[in-house]
């Protein structure tokens, strides 16, 4: 579809880069009265991907929502990416999305055809995920926004927490990093359109394939890598699990073009926020130095990023092999040890 408006120019921040920092959120929510409920298996204080509520011995419900300003000019693609990103938290908990509600804000510059295309993208991904969009809410505002509130289901004994990693595990990452840096470069018209096509395709890819492969193995921990970057989410996993995560930086999949863009200074603000949060918890392995541009990629906020999965080393290769059939960029990127002085060691 041809349209003259550039959606990304209507937004201040791109994608998950618009996320408010974890520290800010904690301060905002401090001191509120909340009810205790034993059936709430995963709540806010767990810093996990979504809330999980046990209905009975067979079924737990997963609740999550995610929305953001346009990350790409093509409205259909934007809708697909926002929907894939919103449903990702359900997959990260080991579940399957079933119901979804549209959350949308339209600005006055947007023609109705553009709005329709965004929604079509969302419905397209929900269909692919075997989920039903059954309603929603749309308002007018200064900046466009789109996303979903998603309900999913999982067996209460098979919830994948981000805090269960154990010494002896290996870590699998299922998508390439560098998405935030490259969308920043694209905003400045400094990214190769062919590369961006691949980046957008990756962002629109559901984490369903990775999740479906993962649940066939004894996974100890799982999360999706989004706004807090690989470093931020690894840090949460390590601290929540009481272990240290060793990242083998030469095995981490990322877009080579993101390295060049970072070296040119096209690093989004969120990456600096993530660095401020996670860097104090990280150390280099002895004698190891890492190029600054690669570090920037590790701190880069990802929109609709891949799953980060911890499972016993003996299962690692077979899980990776099966995962690669659905997500070819998946790689083993590190391993878990007993807690050391720092939560993350960069090797």
């Amino acid at each position, binding site marked *: 579809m041809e349209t003259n408006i550039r959606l990304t120019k209507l937004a201040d921040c791109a994608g998950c880069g618009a996320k408010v920092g974890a520290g800010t959120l904690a301060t905002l929510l401090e001191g509120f009265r909340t009810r205790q409920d034993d059936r709430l298996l995963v709540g806010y204080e767990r810093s996990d991907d979504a809330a999980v509520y046990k209905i009975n011995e067979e079924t737990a419900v997963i609740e999550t929502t995610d929305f953001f300003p346009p990350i790409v000019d093509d409205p259909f693609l934007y809708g697909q990416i926002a929907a894939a990103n919103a449903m990702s938290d359900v997959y990260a908990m080991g579940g399957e999305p079933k119901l979804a509600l549209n959350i949308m804000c339209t600005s006055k510059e947007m023609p109705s055809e553009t709005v329709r295309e965004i929604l079509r993208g969302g419905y397209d991904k929900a269909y692919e995920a075997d989920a039903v969009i059954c309603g929603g809410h749309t308002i007018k505002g200064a900046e466009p926004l789109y996303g979903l509130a998603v309900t999913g289901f999982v067996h209460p004994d098979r919830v994948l927490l981000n805090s269960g990693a154990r010494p002896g595990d290996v870590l699998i990452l299922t998508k390439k990093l560098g998405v935030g840096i490259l969308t920043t470069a694209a905003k400045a018209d400094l990214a190769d359109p062919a590369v961006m096509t691949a980046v957008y395709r990756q962002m629109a890819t559901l984490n369903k394939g990775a999740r479906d492969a993962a649940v066939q193995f004894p996974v100890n921990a799982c999360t999706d890598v989004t706004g807090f970057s690989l470093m931020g989410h690894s840090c949460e996993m390590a601290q929540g699990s009481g272990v240290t995560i060793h990242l083998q930086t030469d095995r981490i999949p990322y877009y080579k073009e993101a*390295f060049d863009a970072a070296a*040119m*200074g096209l690093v989004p*603000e969120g990456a600096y926020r993530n660095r401020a949060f996670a860097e104090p918890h990280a150390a280099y392995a002895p004698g*190891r130095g890492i190029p*600054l541009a690669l570090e920037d990629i590790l701190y880069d906020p990802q929109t609709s990023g891949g799953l980060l999965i911890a499972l016993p080393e003996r299962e690692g290769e077979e899980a990776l092999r099966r995962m690669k059939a659905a997500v070819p960029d998946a790689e083993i990127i590190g391993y878990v040890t007993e807690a050391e002085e720092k939560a993350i060691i960069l090797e």
Partner: protein
Amino acid sequence: MEKIVVDAMGKACPAPVIMTKKAIDGLSEAAVVETHVDNAIAVENLKRLASGIGAEVETEADGESHYVVRIKTGYANGAASDTLVKAPVLQFDACGPGKTVLQLSADVMGAGNDELGKALMKAFVYAASQLDPLPDAVVCYNGGVRLTIPEADTFADLKAMEEAGVRIIVCGTCANFYGLTEKVAVGTISNMYDILQTLNEAGRIIRP
């Protein structure tokens, strides 16, 4: 030297980087590009831009909402050119007291047997890292860039020298030629102008 001022006050990333890069790309001779920004993140990104094209950079903060970043470009057309097009005439007065520069142009020391040459180079770099005082700079070019990747047995000693304040300059063209640009993990990737200027400023050049 010509000075160009870029006013990027009130601009969010990536605009300050783009405006500065355009100014650098438009240069026909060495110049200082001075960018004014109002946030620390833009400063960090401009430092990356300068380092990426092998230019010198200095920053100045005037309170919390005004920063000045000066990028000194040494050659024509910024990153577009990696050659000696506009390099200044070199003056050879190496007799006076000057800096000590280590020149590493291969990953082996001496000619004859490369296995021996590699072992000698490892010992040479180790010994250099123990010198007192340490050399001021190390320039690595051609096969010498292989010494700067983490797998190299010279890596730890070079890293230690860098941490002790030794300036390590890695030839960008060479790293690119060997496909090592993303693996160089010590020193600054730079250009021929920088290498020549460093050698030119040297009072003493040590070659293995």
